[in-house]
């Protein structure tokens, strides 16, 4: 390397020998800084799974890969998506929010104006009313945990408590509902009871610290903690106060739950308690037999805090309490953990969540007995992962 310089050959060679054993990464400069970071190229398969209509590519869903994630926050790039006609391109400089209808004074707000109001944050989940709907099928779907149940994500949402703006407009006593309308290619409209909006609704501007992502409502999203995704209206442009709901397509034709008697439950806003073992889960393999595996997963409830998650390895014959990771937040993902000693036996792993309203996540048997198999929405039954004696994991209905 350095021609005009000579010293004992042994030492020089020795050095060359061992440095060749160092990883490349230690023998060269790394990549420079970046203005906005991206995931590692080695994790390029950790993605949202897209299922969209073939003729209408903006209509469908993309699932969060919950089986590949840890902790409780869903990073913005992997927050689930549900769009009715794609992700609109909305210039925040021209976007307006109109609050009108049964108010003393119709008011409009620019995004810059909204930033002047007091803001609040809360970490909470948003779950599509149609999440896990493959569970209604007669045959258990063989998709990864996230790609069957990942129409739910958990983020820190920050924005203006909507109550301030409603009070500013002045709520007329007749106002019972508010029709929210989006500025997307579906002009999505939906009716929301005004008391929820006065309770804990946030006009979200930020998602996990930064401005909303386009697919999550940029520049403005209504966040209704614990309520189904459809009413967490993205790309919000209008809130019209009314005495009755509008009976829009997405509160009649869709997002209503058909019952066995042919009637349908309407305005089923609250997402009931649910849990899911994310690991070990379908598609993973238990390599050691016997071996200890860390059973981990997520639990959440639209009614409040998770108070308990039980885990079973024998189809629900017996249950053991999992550890709940702190902090346990209201209407937010709660991670549970429980080590599991596998002896090579056939096993069925299940988790069961309880929330602070006392609600207990039902078995699939109980859910189907109560609601039939054509409800399509609000599937929150216990999920069962079968572990074969070979250590392979499948989705089963144990009953």
């Amino acid at each position, binding site marked *: 390397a350095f021609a005009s310089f000579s010293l004992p050959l042994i030492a020089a060679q020795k050095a060359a020998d061992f440095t060749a054993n160092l990883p490349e990464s230690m023998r060269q400069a790394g990549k420079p800084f970046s203005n906005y970071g991206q995931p590692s190229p080695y994790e390029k398969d950790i993605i949202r799974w897209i299922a969209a209509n073939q003729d209408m590519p903006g209509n469908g869903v993309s699932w969060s890969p919950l089986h590949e994630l840890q902790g409780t926050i869903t990073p913005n790039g992997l927050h689930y998506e549900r769009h009715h006609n794609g992700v609109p391109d909305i210039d925040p400089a021209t976007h307006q929010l109109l609050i009108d209808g049964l108010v003393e004074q119709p008011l409009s707000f620019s995004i810059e104006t909204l930033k002047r109001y007091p803001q609040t944050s809360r970490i909470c989940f948003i779950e599509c009313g149609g999440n896990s709907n493959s569970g209604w099928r007669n045959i258990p779907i063989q998709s990864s945990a996230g790609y069957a149940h990942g129409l739910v994500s958990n983020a820190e949402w920050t924005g203006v408590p909507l109550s301030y703006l409603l009070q500013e407009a002045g709520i007329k006593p007749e106002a019972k509902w508010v029709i929210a309308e989006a500025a997307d290619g579906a002009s999505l409209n939906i009716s929301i009871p005004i008391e929820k909006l006065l309770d804990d609704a946030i006009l979200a501007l930020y998602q996990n610290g930064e401005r909303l992502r386009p697919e999550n409502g940029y520049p403005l999203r209504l966040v209704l903690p614990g309520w189904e995704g459809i009413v967490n209206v993205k790309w919000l442009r209008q809130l019209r106060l009314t005495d009755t709901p509008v*009976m829009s397509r997405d509160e*009649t034709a869709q997002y209503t739950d058909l019952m066995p008697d042919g009637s349908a439950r309407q305005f089923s*806003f609250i997402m009931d308690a649910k849990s899911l073992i994310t690991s070990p889960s379908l598609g993973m393999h238990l390599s050691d037999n016997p071996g200890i595996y860390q059973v981990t997963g997520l639990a959440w409830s639209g009614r409040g805090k998770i108070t308990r998650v039980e885990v079973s390895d024998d189809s629900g014959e017996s249950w053991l309490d999992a550890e709940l990771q702190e902090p346990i937040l209201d209407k937010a993902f709660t991670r549970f953990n429980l080590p599991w000693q596998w002896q090579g036996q056939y096993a069925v792993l299940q988790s069961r969540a309880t929330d602070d309203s006392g609600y207990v996540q039902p078995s699939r048997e109980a859910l189907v007995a109560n609601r039939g198999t054509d409800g399509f929405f609000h599937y929150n039954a216990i999920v069962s992962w079968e572990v074969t004696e070979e250590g392979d994991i499948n989705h089963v209905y144990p009953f």
Partner: protein
Amino acid sequence: IPTTYAQPLYQPLGQKADTLSSKPEWNLTIFPDGRGLPQGAGDAAQGKKIFTQHCVACHGFDAIGASAMPLVGEVGSLTSEYPEKTVNSYWPYATTLFDYIRRSMPPSSPYSLSSNEIYALCAYILSQDGIIESGVELNEVTLPQVTMPNRDGFSVIHQQ
């Protein structure tokens, strides 16, 4: 300092929007009683032509479904083993059809159809299952009068 701080304290920064609020582009929502419906009229024969041009590609000939769901048929199927939720079998209000088509369909160009065209499409879809007679003209007066088969099929579970 205590005199200048308080919680919560903020400036009311909303712009008076009476004019905005009265504009048609801020009055898109149509109610079951007909509030919000624009003037116009159309019948099933007209609707069939429009449907053929703008909708068949996704919803199929006769609106019985293709890449997009069926819109007609299956009336009375809701208690069967394979219930099918079409416009005609499931939707409680006909006004919703106008509201939804105008704001969402066809997906590549929402709001591209005239009010007449949308009334005609509603007439075409509803007449397929005899919810209206095939010759009936739908307009802002008659559309809200249509009684959908599943009008009373919904029970509100949200407790106010």
